[in-house]
């Protein structure tokens, strides 16, 4: 078989394991190109380093620590852990992106850490964002990351590849997030479990850079080991999707018939068209995260509320995903627009997504957010009901104080 006929994941693993080719299901060790760590796992990694007598990394220029989950540190225990982690990172001499630099995956994207064909590990499940640039980008736990930091290597099993071919002409209100929520509704979290997903088709090929990152981020919600988006239309670099063979699994989705979707508490896969909930009260709207905290998302939120005031009973929080996004949003006037409309625009980072900093929702309240997960307790209160949507649906809800109907979606 010609080498180019192997799926992207096989090619990348083979190249990093010093092999001509690898087969699905093979277990082997591979060299990693870069490793990055977020603040939730860095205290544990520091402890593992201490316990195993480690004091260096395989290449300080290829290891980064990003402080994103607890930007405004809310209590003493976390402050102590974050302080330890910062000192640990600086002593190692690795790259440090301090509080306010942004979400690790957005920082990695901006800093060019996702090179097409590279193997990148992150200590966060949404590292799959790197699939937008055709990196084999894998989220792992603290022990895996500590081992890779120390040795520059990791163990991998070669996953089976499937193709997700998405085409059609989207309705003007349809956003990439809606397509993801439909994919989760239709295929659940087992269809793609432990598989490599190559997105193809005219819809996937036409996505903007921001949208591609958004789609890639939810690979983990699909259960995938990794995802690969096609290179951007005018991009000169990048790896094109390989063709599916006749025996390969190809899933098709036509976006033409789809409408904006919402995920119900407490699973991203439990999704319905937003119409189904029209009129239901919303208490708290949060726009941000590694799925929808990019400039395109902030711009959409600003466009929706421009020149208006949100429902005064809604708590409306917008968190730009990175410092660059924040600065671009300021320069474009989006932050001004949002603040005048009644939004609380917070420093860049993971924001309210994980309950490790404000704003924690009230017990019994209904939250509508652009996050990628809504597991019970996710935002720090198991008594809140969390719904997921696109920034368009979320910002429209902030204006009217309830889930919008078709008329209330501000296009």
């Amino acid at each position, binding site marked *: 078989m010609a080498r180019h006929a192997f799926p992207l994941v096989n090619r990348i693993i083979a*190249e*990093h*394991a*010093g*092999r001509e080719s690898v087969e699905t299901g093979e*277990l*082997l*060790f*591979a*060299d990693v190109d870069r490793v990055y760590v977020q*603040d*939730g*796992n860095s*205290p*544990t990694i520091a*402890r*593992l380093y201490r316990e*195993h007598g*480690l004091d260096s990394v395989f290449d300080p220029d290829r290891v980064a620590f990003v402080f994103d*989950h*607890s930007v405004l540190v809310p*209590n003493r*225990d*976390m402050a102590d*852990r*974050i302080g330890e982690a910062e000192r640990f990172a600086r002593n190692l001499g690795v790259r440090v992106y301090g509080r306010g630099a942004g979400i690790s995956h957005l920082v990695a994207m901006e800093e060019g850490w996702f090179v097409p064909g590279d193997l990148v590990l992150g*200590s*966060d*499940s949404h590292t799959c964002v790197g699939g937008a640039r055709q990196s084999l980008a894998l*989220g*792992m*736990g*603290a*022990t*895996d990351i*500590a*081992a890779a930091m*120390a*040795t520059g*290597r990791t*163990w991998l099993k070669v996953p089976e590849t499937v193709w997700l071919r998405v085409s059609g002409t989207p309705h003007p209100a349809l956003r990439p997030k809606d397509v993801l929520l439909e994919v989760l509704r239709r295929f659940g*979290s*087992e269809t793609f*479990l*432990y598989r490599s997903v190559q997105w193809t088709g005219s819809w996937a090929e036409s996505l903007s850079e921001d949208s591609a990152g958004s789609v890639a981020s939810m690979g*983990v*919600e699909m*259960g995938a*080991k990794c995802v690969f988006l096609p290179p951007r239309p005018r991009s000169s670099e990048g790896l094109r999707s390989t063709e599916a063979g006749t025996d390969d699994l190809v899933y098709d989705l036509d976006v033409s018939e789809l409408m904006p979707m919402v995920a119900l508490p407490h*699973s991203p896969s439990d999704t319905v068209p937003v119409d189904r909930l029209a009129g239901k009260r919303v208490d708290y709207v949060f726009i941000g995260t590694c799925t929808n905290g990019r400039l395109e998302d902030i711009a959409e939120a600003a466009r929706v509320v421009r020149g208006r005031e949100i429902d005064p009973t809604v708590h409306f929080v917008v968190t730009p995903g990175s410092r660059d996004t924040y600065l671009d949003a300021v320069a474009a006037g989006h932050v001004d627009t949002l603040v005048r409309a009644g939004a609380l625009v917070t420093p860049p980072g993971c924001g309210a997504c*994980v*309950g*490790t900093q404000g704003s924690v929702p009230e017990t019994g309240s209904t939250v509508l957010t652009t996050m990628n*997960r809504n*597991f*019970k*307790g*996710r935002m*720090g209160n*198991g008594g809140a009901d969390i719904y997921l949507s696109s920034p368009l649906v979320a910002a429209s809800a902030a204006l009217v104080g309830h889930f919008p109907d078709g008329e209330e979606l501000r296009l």
Partner: protein
Amino acid sequence: MTTSHRVMNVHGVISTDDIIPARYKHMYTKPEELAPHVFEHRFPGMAGEFRQGDTLVSDSITGIGSSREQAVSALLGCGVTVVIAPKFGRIFYRNCWNLGLPALEMDTRELGAAEKLEVSLEAGVVSTGSIELAFTPVPQLMVDMVRAGGMLSFVLAGGGPVSAANKGMRA
């Protein structure tokens, strides 16, 4: 080697957020600090019911979502020594083996009613006393990692199937 375990059942799809809410991983690094908060939102009160040597038996996909290894260390802190489920989330599965907690993939419909289970990693079988069931075979690498006391000890000691062999082969 065969080990014996009391069964603790959980039902439905289990995320790592269900096992340990995120904020605790930012507060604590030790298993014994995490253990009291296991399943805090999903199954309130369950954390206090675990005993050393328990096996967690799930009837659905287990460990989806966040990469937090603390989901595994928290279960270890509760005394759980085997996890059995029909399917696992990828990162949780890695983390289990990396920390020395065998994660066995198999149909669990006939296991949930049992009070105790006997597990043999080498033979690849789980016994309820009345029936014996096979699980998806575990690669030798995983067994070696558990024996070495976890992944980090294993690789730092130079373990691995192609150890050093592929070093330096890339430009």
